[in-house]
């Protein structure tokens, strides 16, 4: 296979909830080690599209898809796909921090343990690495046995990022990761994402357009399930080509 700069290739891809078509014939490429942001009004299908990248929509009984979605050249909706392995390689962080009700250590150890890593020293190393990468280690190294739920909101969100990183993912999907956080924690996470981007591909759904503008390399604008415009972030925010995009980002929608 020729060297491909796209980690995801989405081709004429649609997602349905029963009869309802939530994502309509989207074609989009996601580049390796870039931050791609998806913006659009509520209900435009952006979270649905994001969740399709590691088949989280499978959990919704009535959902089904059409079209093709390649991850590193492999169609992830093929019947032989190992979905558990896919979700290890394509991690996810949600809007509200959702640590497990266990210690900081156990939160991060959960994935590696399930993967069969049992040796204490090996686990210790993975956990320290993940917490360092998530920029949380300094704050929690003396309280690894305390409950993950005892941390601040911003720390909990970074714990969730560490939990995801412990799985050594190639991609992390973020669904509104800072909308429940204050500006300082938000800035912290944004800096972290730009740091992580060096080793992990990031796709982020955000309602905060300034956030997309600040951190992403590429921005996609979705409306009513359709991909209206996709391009490098600077072009989208300075000189969008589509009138709908312009109206949305300048706050003159509808």
């Amino acid at each position: 296979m020729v060297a491909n700069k796209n980690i995801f290739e989405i081709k004429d891809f649609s997602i349905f909830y029963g009869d309802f078509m939530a994502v309509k014939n989207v074609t989009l490429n996601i580049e390796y080690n870039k931050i791609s942001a998806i913006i659009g009004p509520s209900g435009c299908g952006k979270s649905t599209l994001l969740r399709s990248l590691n088949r989280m929509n499978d959990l919704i009984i009535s959902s089904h898809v059409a079209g093709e979605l390649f991850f590193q050249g492999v169609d992830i909706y093929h019947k032989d796909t190992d979905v558990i392995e896919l979700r290890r390689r394509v991690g996810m962080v949600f809007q509200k921090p959702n640590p497990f009700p266990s210690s900081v250590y156990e939160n991060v150890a959960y994935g590696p343990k399930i993967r069969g890593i049992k040796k204490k020293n090996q686990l210790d190393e993975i956990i320290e690495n993940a917490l360092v990468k998530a920029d949380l280690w300094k704050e929690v190294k003396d309280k690894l046995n305390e409950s993950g739920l005892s941390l601040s909101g911003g720390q909990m969100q970074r714990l969730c990022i560490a939990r995801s990183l412990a799985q050594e993912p190639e991609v992390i999907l973020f669904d509104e990761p800072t909308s429940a956080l204050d500006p300082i924690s938000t800035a912290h996470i944004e800096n972290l994402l730009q740091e992580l981007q060096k080793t992990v591909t990031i796709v982020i759904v955000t309602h905060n357009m300034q956030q997309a503008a600040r951190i992403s390399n590429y921005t996609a604008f979705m409306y009513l399930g359709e991909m209206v415009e996709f391009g490098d972030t600077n072009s989208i925010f300075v000189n969008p080509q589509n009138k709908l995009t312009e109206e949305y980002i300048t706050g003159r929608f509808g």
Partner: protein
Amino acid sequence: MAIFDEELKDLRERVLKLGCMVENAIRDSVKALVERDSDLAKEVIKKDHLINALDVGIDEECVRLIALRQPLARDLRLITTAMKITTDLERMGDMAVNIAERALELNEEPQLKPFVNIPKMAVLAQSMVRDALDAFVTGCSRLPYEVIKRDDEVDDLTVKNFEELLSFMIQDPKRIPLAIKRTYIAKYLERIADHATNIAEMIIYMCRGKMIRHTEITDAP
């Protein structure tokens, strides 16, 4: 209308007002020269602080809008354009003051010869300012491209004016001080036209999101 749209409308109107004041200053400074009206020249000089104050006010408003409204896309391009073109307009105001100052000096001396090129240049420069600002308000059209083209006519007149004055100076060196002042005035008008060209280029950026400064225009509509 949303508050932000009102604010942008107000910003556009302030830029237009500044443009009108500058256009009048250019017209009056040249009129003061041609009609040897020193009172009018003094008035141009006296009124320049109003132009400066409006320029500062527009800049402050632009910074406020960037900070508080976080403009994007066409709004961002409108505000950055307003900030840049007010600087050009303010400089044109200074050029009008320079013309008025030279007029005051020349009005003290006997007239060298009737003015021919300078009034033509002034009319062209004023029309460039007016059309560039019309384009600022009415949006995308051929107008800013025409303004840029007109700059060549002003440049040609500058050269013509200089050559004529040069022959005067050669014929009679005593005419040199007055002739040099006239070449200055032509130079001021030529600079005014350059600033109008800058404005037209920014209007094209505002409309199309494309910087055309220091490039050849190949795709004018």
